[in-house]
């Protein structure tokens, strides 16, 4: 099984990296870019086949460790 986790900064947190990347894209000639948010992507390879148990365990890991709920949101997919 593979877990795919995307971690993004919360909207309330200023994202200067995102703004800088957006400015750079505009300077390169890309148009119509409203906003860029820079986050993190994790892939976790797991033993076993029980998706539900894995999801519960990883949700807890995401909430307690892999993301910081004060400043980040996360999305977890298991395939």
């Amino acid at each position: 099984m593979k877990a795919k986790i995307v971690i993004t900064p919360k909207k309330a947190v200023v994202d200067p990296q995102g703004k800088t990347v957006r400015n750079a894209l505009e300077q390169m000639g890309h148009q119509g870019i409203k906003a860029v948010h820079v986050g993190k992507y994790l892939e976790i390879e797991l033993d076993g086949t029980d998706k539900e148990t894995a999801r519960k365990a990883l949700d807890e890991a995401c909430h307690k460790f892999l993301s910081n709920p004060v400043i980040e949101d996360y999305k977890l997919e298991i395939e």
Partner: protein
Amino acid sequence: MNFAVLQFPASNCDQDAIHALRDVLGHPARYVWHKETSLGDADAVIVPGGFSYGDYLRCGAIARFSPVMQAVKHFADNGGLVLGICNGFQVLTEAGLLPGALVRNRDLQFHCEHIFLKTVTPDSPFTNKIPAGKPLKVPIAHGEGCYFADESTLVALKANNQILWQYCSATGDVTESANPNGSLLNIAGICNQRRNVAGLMPHPERASEPLLGSDDGRWIFESMIAALQNRTVAKAA
């Protein structure tokens, strides 16, 4: 007073902390390795600066799970004094011992310079000896020092007098231009509700001797020592 200075893999301000406490201020100070599970007879704990675990995942995110942090949490729960400096502040917020979080500096640059701190309240074991109205000249050296907390947390910090230091100008004015990293409310350091755990991004251990350009930082350690000595007197009475 016995000070314990934690060491995580890639802490790098632990030696400066020991030097300031032991050699400059004359109090016993010892290193405590992150794998130790006891703080011994420590009266206060310093969580030092550095890049613990390479700042991997997030600054302080891995260090907060070190075995020694269980002992620190227990120590703090029992009212012990804990001061987190720079990466130490980050570790304490990740551990939930202080509210909020430290994120990337607003201008995305690493800032290594002297700044000035306004002491917002003398009412804490970390600020009680700081001369009233005196801006403290202390160096910063960080890339992720921007203090963030949501609106309700900021309201609570103000209401409970938990903001200990704000970035200010040399004349003590709290302004945007005096803010090196975009921290909300110019917050440089805070304490918990109980007022026994504090954290700040600037380095008082690097401003404890005139040779280093300022010895304003030693007021923070002197405050902790005075607070601890008052406790000893109170207990003996």
